[in-house]
Structure formats: structure tokens, C-alpha cells
């Protein structure tokens, strides 16, 4: 099982604020 990262960061941050949930933000260069 893999972590399902989202790429719409603006939306993630907005939803996190609304849901009061922390965010894990990964700056990556790994092959996708």
C-alpha cells in the first residue's frame, strides 16, 4: 500500500484548514 499524495496543494491546504487536519507536504524529485 502506498501513500496517496495529492498534487493540488492549494486545495489540500484549504481542506486541511476546514477539517482542522495537519498536512504532510513532500518536496520530491523521486521518479513518479
Amino acid at each position: 500500500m502506498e501513500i496517496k499524495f495529492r498534487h493540488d496543494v492549494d486545495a489540500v491546504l484549504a481542506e486541511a484548514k476546514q477539517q482542522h487536519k495537519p498536512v504532510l507536504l513532500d518536496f520530491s524529485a523521486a521518479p513518479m
Partner: protein
Amino acid sequence: MVKFVTDNFMPARVHVRDDSALFQKYGEKYGAQWTPTILELDSDGVERHRIEGFLPNDDFLAQLMLGRAQIAFAEQKWEEAERRFREIVEKLPDTDAAPEALYWAGVAPYKATQDNSSLKQTASAFKDRYQDTSWAKKASIWA
């Protein structure tokens, strides 16, 4: 690892090439200049913990747990923060995060009660383990 992330965070990724505009935007906002850089943000988007560079699985998980505990600490959820810090020491005692977690596990109850007995207990605990770490030095003032 996956369960911890899923249970505790909304995970987002910006890729240096495939999301180059977002990478630049958020790289500048948060000062991320290297990959991998993993930020743990509170729900307001405030950075509470940063992991730069590769880490083995246990160390990486411990750092994730440390950041999550620091988010609870910043929210002044003292009991939750202490529980999360202690969980690192108990489950991943050999990681670099563990002595830092032990230190903050002593601070959290003090913040809740202003009773310094938890600080004294923490200083005492550092006499038995992690003696050579900077966190043991920092706790030594509480002895």
C-alpha cells in the same frame, strides 16, 4: 508508515519537474531548497517540523511522529503531545528522534500543570539513557 500518514495527515507532494510551478511557489514559501524535504504543517499551514534528506524507515517514521507530536504541542494539547512523544521513545527507542521526544515528553506535562516534577523525572531518565545526546545536556538543568 502508510497508516500513520493516512491517519494523521493530508498528504500532498510537489515534484521538482512534474509540478515545477507549484514546486517553485511552495519552495519559496517554505524555504525548501533540497529534495527530499518533507514538511509537517498544522492545519493553518504553519510549518511545525521539517525532514531534509533520506532516512531509514524507522528514523523516518520517528521523525514523522515527532512532528505530529509537535503539532499537538503547538496546539497546547498537552496530554496528546506527551502521549505522542512517549510513543516514540517506547516504540522507536534507537532512533535519533527518541531523545528529543523524551525531552519534550517531560515538558508537555509541565506546560499543563506548572509542576516541575515531570522535568525532574525527565532529567533522571536521561541519566539512564541517551546520556551522550544534546537533549541530555538540555535536560541536565532540571536535575
